[in-house]
């Protein structure tokens, strides 16, 4: 059993789950403590030890299924069925004849091992392929790097499977064994293909999603930001200023109550001198306000720009609530505008963003590329006090979404929040990648009007 668990753990790691040796040992010991009456009991024990968050359970489930349900299990009433051992021998023989380890590619080797019941190497190969970055291309932009990698892997699998099946048909005389060998090979090939074609997956039940709220009234606060009339801009700014004052008031009140920290010995002793050394007047330290670092990534293409602008305006008006705010904007290339915005006149500075030479407003929006650049520019400076806020419609013109990068960012930071300025019923349509991106967020909020934006900012600062 332990041996099998160790191999399973290896597959989990290849699929990017962190499983330590201690956990494997613990799990083995626990399997002896509970009666395993059925597969569910077995899976429960493994899952409690190998997947340590709801999010990761999906990957666990995938690997579990791949590893423990490898062979099409012969049914009891199937009289022709050949025992697993003989099938295994048949497979070994097949591979021996065909596979020459020296001139096999890594992909072929991985798949061969998978047929033998050891999928770790194959999982590792696919995992690396999925997380490979796109190369920056000047002339024609494409997402071919990852795609072509996947295609050649698919091809290798088909070729190998065909060759093996062909060989089985020609040489295996026992019809029952022949059928089972072919079943096994096609089953493995199908599994391998589905691993390649699907993005690494996560359960999202724990994601907080705030969608549209139907409120009856229509006023400035519920007007869609994307179609905001230019002559209403000043009214909007006025309104934001009012909201900012209100929020600051509320914060000040809350802070006053929670503010008392632990006793300040130095101060207390100093005061006690007045009373012949008796510490009557006890002094407390004011508690350090825990202030978050904020990093924003805003799409500024087309209709999304208005929402980005108001969000940044709002955020910078509350700048003293945070220990640091860094801001990046992108269409396809990423530009940091933190310095530009660190002025008392945020609103004016925002109007100048578009004239930044680094921004090509004619480029096609490419989220994947923006995330990739963000990773290289800023990942090292992110920490567990940072909240990352991404604002955008996730419409990436069918280019490689590179969602895996968001997962890497998430691991570094405290929280990852996505603000989507589109009305909710259009989120999952067309070229929107929000379905991929949401898997890596802690929170996904609609922010198509000022009222939704305010709700979000309130939750952020209070």
């Amino acid at each position: 059993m332990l041996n099998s668990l160790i191999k399973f753990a290896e597959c989990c790691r290849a699929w990017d789950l962190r499983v330590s040796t201690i956990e494997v040992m613990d799990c083995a010991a626990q399997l002896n403590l509970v009666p395993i009456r059925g597969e569910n009991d077995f899976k429960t024990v493994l899952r409690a030890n190998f997947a340590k968050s709801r999010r990761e359970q999906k990957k666990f489930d995938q690997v579990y299924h791949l590893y423990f349900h490898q062979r099409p299990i012969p049914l009891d009433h199937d009289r022709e069925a050949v025992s697993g051992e003989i099938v295994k021998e048949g497979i070994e023989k097949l591979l021996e004849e065909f596979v020459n380890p020296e001139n096999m590619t890594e992909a072929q080797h991985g798949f061969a091992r998978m047929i033998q019941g050891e999928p770790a190497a194959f999982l590792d190969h696919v995992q690396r392929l999925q997380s490979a970055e796109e190369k920056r291309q000047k002339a024609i932009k494409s997402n071919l790097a990852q795609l072509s990698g996947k295609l050649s892997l698919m091809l290798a699998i088909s070729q190998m499977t065909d060759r093996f099946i062909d060989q089985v048909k020609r040489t295996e005389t026992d019809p029952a064994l022949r059928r089972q060998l072919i079943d096994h090979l096609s089953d493995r090939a199908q599994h391998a293909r589905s691993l390649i074609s699907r993005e690494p997956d996560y359960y999202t039940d724990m994601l907080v999603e705030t969608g549209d709220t139907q409120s009856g009234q229509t006023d400035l606060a519920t007007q869609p930001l994307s179609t905001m009339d230019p002559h209403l801009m000043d009214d909007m700014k006025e309104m934001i200023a009012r909201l900012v004052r209100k929020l600051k008031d509320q914060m000040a009140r809350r802070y006053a109550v929670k503010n008392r920290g632990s006793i300040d010995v130095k101060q207390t002793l100093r005061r006690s001198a007045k009373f012949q050394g008796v510490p009557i007047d006890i002094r407390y330290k004011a508690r350090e306000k825990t202030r978050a670092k904020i990093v924003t990534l805003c799409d500024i293409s087309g209709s999304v720009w208005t929402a980005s602008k108001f969000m940044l305006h709002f955020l910078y008006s509350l700048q003293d609530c945070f220990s640091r705010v860094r801001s990046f904007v992108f269409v396809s290339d990423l530009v940091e505008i933190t310095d530009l915005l660190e002025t008392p006149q945020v609103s004016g500075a925002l109007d100048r963003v578009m004239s930044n030479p680094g921004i090509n407003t004619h480029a096609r929006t490419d989220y994947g590329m923006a995330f990739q650049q963000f990773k290289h520019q800023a990942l090292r400076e992110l920490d567990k006090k940072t909240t990352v806020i991404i604002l955008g419609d996730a419409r990436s013109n069918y280019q490689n979404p590179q969602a895996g990068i968001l997962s890497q960012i998430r691991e570094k930071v405290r929280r990852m929040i996505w603000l989507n300025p589109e009305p909710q019923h259009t989120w999952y349509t067309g070229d929107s990648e929000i379905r991929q991106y949401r898997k890596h967020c802690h929170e996904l909020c609609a922010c198509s009007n000022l009222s939704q934006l305010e709700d979000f900012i309130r939750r952020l600062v209070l």
Partner: protein
Amino acid sequence: MPFNDVKDVQKQLESVRYIASQEIATVVFLAVATEKPILIEGPAGVGKTQLAKALSMCLDRQLIRLQCYEGLDEAKALYEWEYAKQLLYTQMVKDRINHVISDARTLPEAVDRIASQEDAFFSERFVQPRPLLQAISSPDPVVLLIDEVDKSDPEFEAFLLELLSDFQVTIPELGTRKPLTIPLVILTSNNYRDMSDALKRRCLHLYIDYPEPEIEMEIVRMKLPGISVKLVEQLIRTITAIRGMELRKKPCISESIDWARSLIALEKDELTLPDASATLNTVCKYRSDLLKVRQQLSQMI
């Protein structure tokens, strides 16, 4: 061993009115048997906190609860050193101190004499224990519930990790405190942020989802014994369908119970569309959800 086997966990939890699935019971059994903490995740209102309470009841152990929040620190969670009290005591025994050192010939000798009395100055009596210290200093093992651990700061998590590894703590003024008993630790999280790998490694993980319809029916019947079979079935079927919708807040177990209760108050023994629609506000807390569900209600009953 407090529990004989997994079945026994289920039985004992049921005796304190908590219905546990096979999965919950298995993980609880393992946690108790191996003295490992359980990290529980799940949507709001599926009974995460209630499980800790039920365990404390059926194991007949005290429940010590630590509610986490941003800014929670060691002083609030572990112990507070009562400087003020210590200073006052020192003042009050000034004469005794003078007496102790009165016949000392040199300054070092005086210091030595005071040092030999150190225990009096640094003693338990100036320690105000908070939940975590209470939990490991209790002569009888307790159930320690660390609720919403995801709301705490990373610094606090690091400290917690140290505690969970061997249950001993160091109090600078007193030295290392070994645990008198090992508590059964239950941590809950709503995924506000991710917990560190190190913390997760120490724990068994349990995800509690909305219960299977049969289990939820059992819960409602247990809370409201008089309810008609037909009503429970219809109600839970409808609730399950509502949970499948995209809502701001999905109804949880307490909402099923509240809904059943209000229908019983209206003396109903089955669920009709008009009654359901009229009482829907016990199920949907947001107006937008209410409108959405009401539109679809006829297909769900």
